[in-house]
């Protein structure tokens, strides 16, 4: 596959000043990106995962020419981000700053018209495109009102529409579903999927929500402290994790079931908790619950068990992150949460 975005040894350093109570202001050097290398292929939906302060937004800002890198370079749609900025921008549709990138005293329609003109979309095309987007995103009820009267979710939808105004081949979405309600977020993800699968758009999608990345992205890069620490398809990343899973099972479970399950290769340990009413609860620790689940069920039912509840705990991309970094995805990069390395969330 051909790369439509290529990043080569991209680094970005910020020089800031900070002051702690009672102390003088000190200069501080923050390396937001360290020699980042990656390719995004044509028609790919590429996810960028990482905690706050990891460098996701810095990377996106460099690729969208908002920020100039300290060293290294990148090409977007065949154009260099420093030497051919206008051509790079003309190839992109971006939703980076959410609701903040809109003019509050203009109506929704006027905002789309304004930005359409800035993207050099011809006037007649622009009018039709705006009608199309308003219809697609169901903005009819409020597109004629000034943005200051919109709710947060409505502003995000308009910002999303703005990103599509020029029908660019490459789209950058930075946490587009934040502040949206569940149905709207779901609908937006459906549209993102359609843009990617049906129209062949290349999408770079950043999110905190693992299920979004797993649902939408062909490949995911996990970024932490300015470096790519993992890159691959969601399944490949999860499969790369060797760790113990837990399967929880409840029901009427004869004593013989425990021994049968223990004898399955890959099962490390089975713990039993019996209830007074004759029912029991098992916790099966094994290497790969996804792989072993059918055999566990067969061992239980084949020995007279009546299963009322069974729940394998899936590997998530958060588990991948925790394994690689020892921290949770939800934790700010500047703070380190001391957790057992490689423990993941599998232990119940």
């Amino acid at each position: 596959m051909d790369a439509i975005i290529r990043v080569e040894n991209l680094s970005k350093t910020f020089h800031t000043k900070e002051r702690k109570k009672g102390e003088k202001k000190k200069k501080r050097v923050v390396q937001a990106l360290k020699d980042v290398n990656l390719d995004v292929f044509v028609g790919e939906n590429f996810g960028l995962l990482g905690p706050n302060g990891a460098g996701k937004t810095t990377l996106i800002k460099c690729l969208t020419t908002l920020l100039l890198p300290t060293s290294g370079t990148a090409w977007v749609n065949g154009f260099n981000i420093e030497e051919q900025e206008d051509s790079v921008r003309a190839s992109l549709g971006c939703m980076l700053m959410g609701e903040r990138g809109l003019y509050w005293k203009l109506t929704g329609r006027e905002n789309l018209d304004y930005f359409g003109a800035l993207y050099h979309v011809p006037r007649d095309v622009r009018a039709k495109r705006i009608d199309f987007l308003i219809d697609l995103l169901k903005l009819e009820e409020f597109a004629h009102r000034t943005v200051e009267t919109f709710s947060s979710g409505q502003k995000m939808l308009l910002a999303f529409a703005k990103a599509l105004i020029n029908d660019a081949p490459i789209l950058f979405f930075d946490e587009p579903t934040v502040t949206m309600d569940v149905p709207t977020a779901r609908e937006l993800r459906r549209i993102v999927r359609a843009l990617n699968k049906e129209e062949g758009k290349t999408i770079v999608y950043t999110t905190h929500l693992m299920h979004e990345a797993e649902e939408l992205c062909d490949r995911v890069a996990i970024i932490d402290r300015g470096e790519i620490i993992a890159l691959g398809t969601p399944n490949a990343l999860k499969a790369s994790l060797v760790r113990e899973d837990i399967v929880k099972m409840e029901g009427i479970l004869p004593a013989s079931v425990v021994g049968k399950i223990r004898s399955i290769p890959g099962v490390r340990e089975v713990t039993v908790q019996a209830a007074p009413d004759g029912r029991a609860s098992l916790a099966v620790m094994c290497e790969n619950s996804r792989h072993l689940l059918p055999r566990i069920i067969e061992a239980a039912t084949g020995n007279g068990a009546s299963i009322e509840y069974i729940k394998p705990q899936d590997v998530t991309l958060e588990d991948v992150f925790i394994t690689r970094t020892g921290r949770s995805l939800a934790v700010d990069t500047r703070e380190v949460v001391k957790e057992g390395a490689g423990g993941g969330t599998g232990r119940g």
Partner: protein
Amino acid sequence: MAAQVAASRGFGLGRPGWRAKREVVRTVFLARIKIITRYKGAILMEALLPIVFAAMPVLLGITVAAQQGGGADPGDLFCAKTKINNLCTTNFKLYMLLGAATFTVVSLMLWLIGYWVRREQETGTLESLYLAPVRRIWVLAGVTSYAFLRAMIAFVIAIALGSLLFQVNPFNSGMGLAIVFLAIGFLPLWGLAFMFGAFIMKIKEADSVIQVLQWILAFLMGVFYPITLLPGYMQAVAGTFPPTVMTDGVRASILNISFIYQSAYGSLAVLCAMALVVPLLGYQVFEVTERRLRRKEGVGHY
């Protein structure tokens, strides 16, 4: 090695021609007009402000004439004190009104153009602007056109209302020349506004500094007095300032008093030279500052 694929750019034009650029200017201009008309009272305030500004030194002049001039006519005192090359005016009210109205034009241009970037930063739309492939110069052309229109509206209303209030008549044979000074003076103002804007982008505590810069301008322009009253070194500095030459030109044309550079031609020549140099310099300073900012912290950081 470059990315291997280049996809088409969707609806956006690959090489925007003059029509697309004109469309940008038109859209930005109209958007700004729509925005300001949705702020109740803004335009009215701008037109009333010069009248209030002018009223204060007029009343002060009346006070001084009564208390220090032994009750002499304030116009005569003003003429005697401000005579240069045997030319002076007793029409101190019109003098103050023209100074205040021109200062409003200068101030509006600086605020609307120079502060434009800062305002976009604060509202978060600057990044949206920088994400678009449009050249900044065309967006600025739209903003400048809008600023020019707003400044002219404020100037005309201020002169019209102020003339009625102070019972003065600015419409004489010198009006044409005054308009020429105003029109040429806009160009170096544009350049100054860019330098202003570059400065604003760098320092984040913009509001207080803008206020001070505004008053420095008013002081050096001689809004309420001829700059010949200032100490020599200040006169030299003030004379190199495009708004000063513009204000002086407008006043001298209408009131038939001495020009800062001895004659109308002299002052016009200096203003034309400023009109050539200052905009180019101003835009260069703006571009360099903007690029440095993008390398350092990005334009959205405020």
